[in-house]
């Protein structure tokens, strides 16, 4: 009995909110006040952050690599689009949840394929699923609108009160609230005994099975949950842009997501959020400087990031905050720990 108590005590202890986390969310809240004219790009970042969070759940906690996460994003996007277009469910919030469930169903059924392989096979299988979805979308262009996308989606006001405006204000707050709620849920889950068992699986599936963790069932559960998150991200995309075209299934979408996590790091939930901010801002800055050759610069920066290593960059970026902490609080400054040492 005491062992189980220890597990939950330790889980609860690691799940306590830290000051830096609070600061992070306060900063996020401050963004719309600081940059009132940049709602659209911020909404874009929030959607990408949620999408990256969903990949982090399986990659960072369960060790499942995926190059086809766009499949769930796309299913969510098209579900939300079709629901709104045909007036089946007019209330965006309900439609959002339904779209999430649609992606979840696909996630549940494809999870059986995914748990069968190891890393390389998983990459192939997930990639294949996304390509299949894209081809299906192309084939049934009478439903999906094919390359032209779903035309004429009109979103009803949120909860019947808040209409989506041209400046993207409603869309931004909507995305932010959804992201925060889902983040809380994800945070709760990864700090639960369930989350701890996932980490055990990631570190060593054989040993995890030996101590009695039902490996496959856990993987199916988290993969399905991750599909739900991705579906919600997709639905948010359609609802805030009133668009859905075949690009939602594209390989680039899944690949970008990997890049986001490469930048932000995995296994601590904030990686996707931070990565999304950095990735989008890099894109934005380079696109403004050189609309034609920005892809080159993005590539270069990514190579540099990987070469220099995240840990070293953290140290550089933390130099200023550390200095402030040392001067003001007289406290010992935080030190950088290589990511592999983190729990």
């Amino acid at each position: 009995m005491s062992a189980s108590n220890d597990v939950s005590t330790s889980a609860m202890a690691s799940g306590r909110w830290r000051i830096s986390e609070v600061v992070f969310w306060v900063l996020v809240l401050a963004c719309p006040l600081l940059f009132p004219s940049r709602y659209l790009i911020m909404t874009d970042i929030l959607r990408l952050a949620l999408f990256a969070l969903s990949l982090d759940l399986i990659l960072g906690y369960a060790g499942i690599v995926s190059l086809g996460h766009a499949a769930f994003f796309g299913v969510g996007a098209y579900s939300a689009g079709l629901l709104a277009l045909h007036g089946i469910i007019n209330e965006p919030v309900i439609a959002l949840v339904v779209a999430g469930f649609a992606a979840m169903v696909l996630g549940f059924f494809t999870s059986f394929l995914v748990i069968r392989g190891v890393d390389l096979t998983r990459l192939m299988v997930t990639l294949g699923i996304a390509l299949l979805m894209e081809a299906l979308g192309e084939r049934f262009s009478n439903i999906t609108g094919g390359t032209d996308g779903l035309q004429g989606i009109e979103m009803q006001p949120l909860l019947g009160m808040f209409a989506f405006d041209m400046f993207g204000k409603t869309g931004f707050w909507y995305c932010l609230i959804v992201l925060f709620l889902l983040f809380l849920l994800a945070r709760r889950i990864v700090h639960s005994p369930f989350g701890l068992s996932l980490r055990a699986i990631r570190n060593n599936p054989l040993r995890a099975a030996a101590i009695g963790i039902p490996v496959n069932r856990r993987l199916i559960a988290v993969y399905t949950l991750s599909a739900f998150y991705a579906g919600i991200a997709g639905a948010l995309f359609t609802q805030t842009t009133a668009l859905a075209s075949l690009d939602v299934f594209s390989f680039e979408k899944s690949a970008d997501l990997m890049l986001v996590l490469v930048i932000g790091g995995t296994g601590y939930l904030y990686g996707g959020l931070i990565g999304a901010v950095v990735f989008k801002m890099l894109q934005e800055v380079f696109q403004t400087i050189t609309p034609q050759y920005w892809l080159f610069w993005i590539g270069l920066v990514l190579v540099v990031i990987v070469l220099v290593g995240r840990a070293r960059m953290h140290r550089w970026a933390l130099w200023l905050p550390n200095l402030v902490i040392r001067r003001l609080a007289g406290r010992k400054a935080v030190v950088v720990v290589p990511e592999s040492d983190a729990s």
Partner: protein
Amino acid sequence: MSIRTDLLSLAATGIALAVAAGAAPASAQESVKIGLILPMTGGQASTGKQIDNAVKLYMQQKGDTVAGRKIEIILKDDGAVPDNTKRIAQELIVNDKVNFIAGFGVTPAALAAAPLATQGKIPQIVMAAGTSIITERSPYIVRTSFTLAQSSTIIGDWAAKNGIKKVATLTSDYAPGNDALNFFKQNFTAGGGEIVEEVKVPLANPDFAPFLQRMKDAKPDAMFVFVPAGQGGNFMKQFAERGLDKSGIKVIGPGDVMDDDLLNNMGDAALGAVTAHLYSAAHPSAMNKEFVAAYKKAFNSRPGFMAVGGYDGIHLIYEALKKTGGKTDGDALIAAMKGMKWESPRGPISIDPETRDIVQNIYIRKVEKVDGELYNVEFATFEAVKDSGKTKK
């Protein structure tokens, strides 16, 4: 657990820096701003490049000041992805306070921006996309490119009258492709022709080989082809590889497939292809000769019809500004543009005051060798063709 603290404070710094970089200074300038949204990367990049070049060329020639106001172009890449287009257009209107949005490489991109033009009362100049419905989506849309209906109806009539009985069609599966197919079919079958095989190829995946085999088996007199600008080269390569150039099957279609941009590299397989289109680099007018020479000198390539769409688009903006005396009120600008007539490198053109769509000559051309290079040589002209694809009201 300190990793978490570290990365979070890193995140905080990161966000602060990033957003600082993103917040553009909003300086109050007197210049007229034009948001040019084009696919500069990805499969449609050739369209974006041509238009961007043409706009630059025009501004070099005519100066960057109109009616006492400086013209400022803000070029953005949307990669021909409609949700990018929409976000970019929105940001240009809201943040950069542009007075025009222009460009739009593909139909979905133009449609995505249409509601914004209406809401913001901003003239939207479509310089490339060619589906008929575009100008109906907002009263602020004016088009300087073409519509597929214009060239497809004419090639349909021409084919029926010139001894072509059986035609197989190959079109890209998206709105302009369907427009091209439907208008061709309508006029060709009305003239007594027969469609023996109909194939639609996915836009994103231009591997024509399996489709070409079906074409070959159908043994038509001619093959009606529409692929968007930029894919024509690839198409003709596979056409020759499959030996269709020796099978006696003629290539006909709207001129997109024989884009001047790529034509010279297609090889002799392209010889004899008959297309109906708005522009050929070989158009025999003094103005066009000058335009082609200037374009070649500046960018070391031949201008195609996309370049002309961009050239005329920026010309239209200049002329409208002259008419309003530099005022940038959206309604006044649109009113000024309606009915405007001018001489373009492609020939005489005007803006239909009712539909805000372009009225232009459509030429029937045949690919021939001129001075060792392949050109679309015009041999028949249909004057002042309107878009017949508008919804009947």
